C-alpha cells in the first residue's frame, strides 16, 4: 500500500507535470503535505488523493523529463502525439466543484512555494481552516518553486548556475533539439526570473 506522502507526490506529479523524483528532489514534499493539510478542512486532501489514485489517473505517471517545447517553436514539439490519461484524470479533478480549486491551490503551492487562499464561495460551501490564508511556506519553499524550473530558469536569488551561462541557448531549446530525451532534469538550470514589482534601474 502506498503511504500518504507517496500518494501526495504522485498526485502532485499529475497536477504539476513534473516527475515524482523531481518533486522529491526539491526537498519540499513533506512540508507541502503538512501545509496543505493545515490549510484544508479535515478529510478534503484525502478525497483529492483518492481521486488522484483512480485507475485512470495512475496508469502512466508523468515522466516530467523533457521540458515541453513552445508550440511556436519551429522544428517540432516535445508534446507530440498521443492521448494523455493524466490529462483526463486531471480534467476530472479540475472540473469538480470541491476538488478543482484545491487542486489549483496545490499547483500554485508547488510552483510558487506559497499557499494561495481558496475562494470565499469554496470556504462557505466546504469549510474554512484558519491556515487558509495567502502565505509563503518558507524561504526554502520560495527558492524551490517550480516556476523557475518551468521557465528553464531558477529562483530569483538562489540556486544560481554560473557566470556567463545566460549567454548560451536555454535548456528548453537543447532538450527540444534532442527529442525523446528523458530523465529528471537537475534543478540547476540557467537564469532566473525576478519577481520584484516596481522600478529597478
Amino acid at each position, binding site marked *: 500500500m502506498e503511504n500518504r506522502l507517496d500518494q501526495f507526490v504522485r498526485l502532485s506529479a*499529475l*497536477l*504539476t*507535470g513534473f516527475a515524482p523524483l523531481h518533486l522529491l528532489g526539491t526537498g519540499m514534499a513533506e512540508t507541502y503535505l503538512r501545509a496543505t493539510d493545515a490549510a484544508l478542512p479535515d478529510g478534503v486532501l484525502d478525497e483529492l488523493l483518492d481521486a488522484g489514485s483512480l485507475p485512470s489517473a495512475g496508469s502512466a505517471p*508523468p515522466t*516530467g523529463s523533457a*521540458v*515541453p*517545447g*513552445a508550440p*511556436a*517553436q*519551429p522544428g517540432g514539439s*516535445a*508534446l507530440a502525439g498521443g492521448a*494523455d490519461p*493524466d*490529462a483526463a484524470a*486531471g480534467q476530472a479533478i479540475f472540473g469538480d466543484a470541491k476538488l478543482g480549486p484545491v*487542486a*489549483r491551490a496545490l*499547483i*500554485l503551492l508547488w510552483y*510558487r512555494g*506559497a499557499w494561495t487562499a481558496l475562494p470565499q464561495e469554496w470556504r462557505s460551501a466546504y469549510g474554512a481552516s484558519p491556515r487558509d490564508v*495567502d502565505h*509563503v511556506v518558507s*524561504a526554502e519553499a*520560495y527558492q524551490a518553486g517550480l516556476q523557475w524550473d518551468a*521557465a*528553464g*530558469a531558477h*529562483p*530569483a*536569488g*538562489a540556486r*544560481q*548556475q*554560473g*557566470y*556567463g*551561462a*545566460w*549567454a548560451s*541557448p*536555454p535548456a*528548453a*531549446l537543447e532538450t527540444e533539439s534532442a527529442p525523446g530525451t528523458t530523465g529528471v532534469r537537475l534543478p540547476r538550470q*540557467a*537564469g*532566473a*526570473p*525576478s*519577481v*520584484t*514589482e*516596481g*522600478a*529597478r*534601474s
Partner: protein
Amino acid sequence: MAFDIDSSAIFPIGAATRTTPQIAARKSYDVVIVGGGVSGSILADQLSQAGHSAVIVEAGPGKDVQLDEYEAYLSRFYAASVKDNQAPYPFNPNARMPRSADAMPVTPQTPDDQYYIVQDGPFCTDTTFTRVLGGTTMHWEGKALRMLPEDFDTASRFGHGRDWPLGYDDIEPYYRQAEQELGVSADVEDQRYLGMTFPPGYVYPMRKMPLSYLDQVVARGVDGMRVDLDGDRYDLRIRSFPQARNGVPNPDYDGGKGYQPIGAISTYQVEEGKRCQGNNNCVPICPVQAKYHAGKTLAKALRTGKVDIVTQAVASRVHVDKESGRISGIEYKRYQDPSSPEHTTHTVHGRVYVLAANAIENARLMLASGLPSTSDLVGRNLMDHAYLLRWALLPEIAGTFRGTNCTGGITELRGGRFRERQAGFAVDIHNDGWGWATGSPYSDLLAIVDGQRKHGRDLRAALVSQLSRQLLLAFMIEVAPEPANRVTVDRRYRDPLGNLKPVISFRVPEYSLAGASFGFDLAGQIFTRLGAEDHTTYDPRDYSYVEYAGRGYSIRGGNHLAGTHVMGKTRHDSVTDPAQRSWDHENLFLVGGGSMPTIGTSNITLTLAALAYRSASFIDTQLRTEKAPAVISAR
C-alpha cells in the same frame, strides 16, 4: 593606506555599533558626514585614508552590512509575500523609505500623508531610495554608464537643461577612480561612442559581461536597423552595458597589475561574491554580493580606525552660525527601537560638514533646518529618469529569465542633434521578462492555472512558451531640470520622530514625453522586425498615466534622484560650487545626485561617485589649509 588583498572584504567587528552618541558628542571631528550610502562612504574612505577623522550619522540600523545581517535581508525577501523592491528591509517608521507600492493617484492640494513621501502631484512617482547603512546601493541594479561629453552643456548646445560648471574631461579621471571602486565590468571598445573618450591604454577593471541569449535574439532584429532623425543617421545595435558587478578581471588593468574583485563583506573571510552567477536577483538584493554595494567602501573606511558611525541617528537639523554662515553642528534624533518613536536628541561637531543623504533627503534636511539660500534653488530642479516600458512575446524561445537583470540594450539614441526637440534615451532589454510591467512570472502562472485551467504537461508547456519568449524594452528617458519640480517641507507633515517629511511636486516635462512617444514607436518597429507580438497596455487609472500628443503612457520612476542642490558657476544661479561646496556655507558640502545640473541618459551613481572623489580632494585641501581651530577630543 594600502590593504592586503585578502582582507579587503573584512568588516571590522562591531565597527558600526561601537560609537555611542555620548562618545561622538565629546569629540570634534575633522568631518561630519550625514548618510552612509555610496557618497558618504567614499568621502569617509578618502578622508580617513588622508589622515582625517570622520563620523557618519546614519538614519538606518547599523549591523546591516555584515554577512549575518545580509543573510537576514535575504531570508526576509524570500519569505515576503509581496516582493517589491524594498521587501528585504524591515519596516522602520523612524527612518521610513518610500515603496513603489505606496504610489497612487494624487489629488493636488490635499496630498496623502500616510507614506513617507508626501506627493503633491500632478504626477505620482513610484521612485524609491533605501535608508539602511549602505544606502540605496544595497538595492540598486548596478548599471554604471558614464555621461556623454554633450550631456555637460545641454543648455548651450540644445537649449534644454542647464550647463555644468565642469566638462567631461574634468570628470574623466574621477570616473576611472569610481570604476575602480565600484568594480565595473565593461570593454572600452564597446563604450567608445558618442564622443566618450578614455586615456590611451585604459581598460575597465573587469571584462564586459556577456550579452544574454535574449539580447542575441533581439540583436538579430536590431543590429543594422537604421534610424534617421533630424538629419542624423543612426545605425542601431545591441551593446553591453557597463555594470558594477564582479565578472572576469582584466589582466591589463592598472598597467598590467590586474584587478582583484571584492566579494562578500563579512566579519570573517568568505569566498562568496567574487563573480556574478547570473541568478537574476540584482534588484532588490544580490544574494552573494557580487554586485557592488557601499558596504564594500565603508568596510575599507572603517579599517582605518579613524571613522566612527552613529547609527539609528536621523539628522534633523543643521545648525548655522549666523555671523559667519558656517555650520556649527548637526543635530540628530537617536531611536533605540525602530518600532517606537521614543528618541534622544544629540549634536555632533566638526570642522567640515557633508550632507550625503541623497537628493531628496539632503534638500529636506536643508529646508527643515530653515537654512538661507541665496539662489532659492534648494529643493528645486528635482530630476529622475522617466521610464517607458513596452513589452511583447517573441516568436521563439529566447531564454528570458536568465542572467543579470539587464546585460544589453540600445545606446545610440542617447545623443545627437534631435535633443533640441526631444529627450534622448537608453534602451534596456530586460532579462527578467515582463516582471516590471506585469508581475511575471507569477501573473502568468495564475493566468494559466486559474484562468486557462491547465495542469500537468500542458501547464509546463504553456509556461515555457509564455515565459521564455518574453521581451520587455525599458526606455530610460532624459528628464531636464525644471525649477517647479521640487522637494519642499510643510509643517503639517511629520514622521513619527517629528521630522518634517519631504513633499514632492513633479510633472514629467513635455521634452521627455516627446522622447517617450518616439521610443514607443521605435519599440513597435523593433517588435515588427522581430515578428514579436505586442502585449503593451497602459491603464488610464494607473497612478503614473500621462497623456501626450493624443496618446497615453504609464511612466515609471527611475530612482535616479538629482538636481535639488545644483552646482554652478555663481551663488546666484546654483546651490553649490563645482566642488559641491555650498555657496552660502563655506564648511558645508552637499554631495550626491542633488549637485548634478542634468542627468542625461546615464544612471547617475557612477557620476555621483566620481563627484564624491573630486570633492574629497577639495575637502582634504580645505582641512589642511583652514585655520579653523580644532577642539581637542576630551575622550
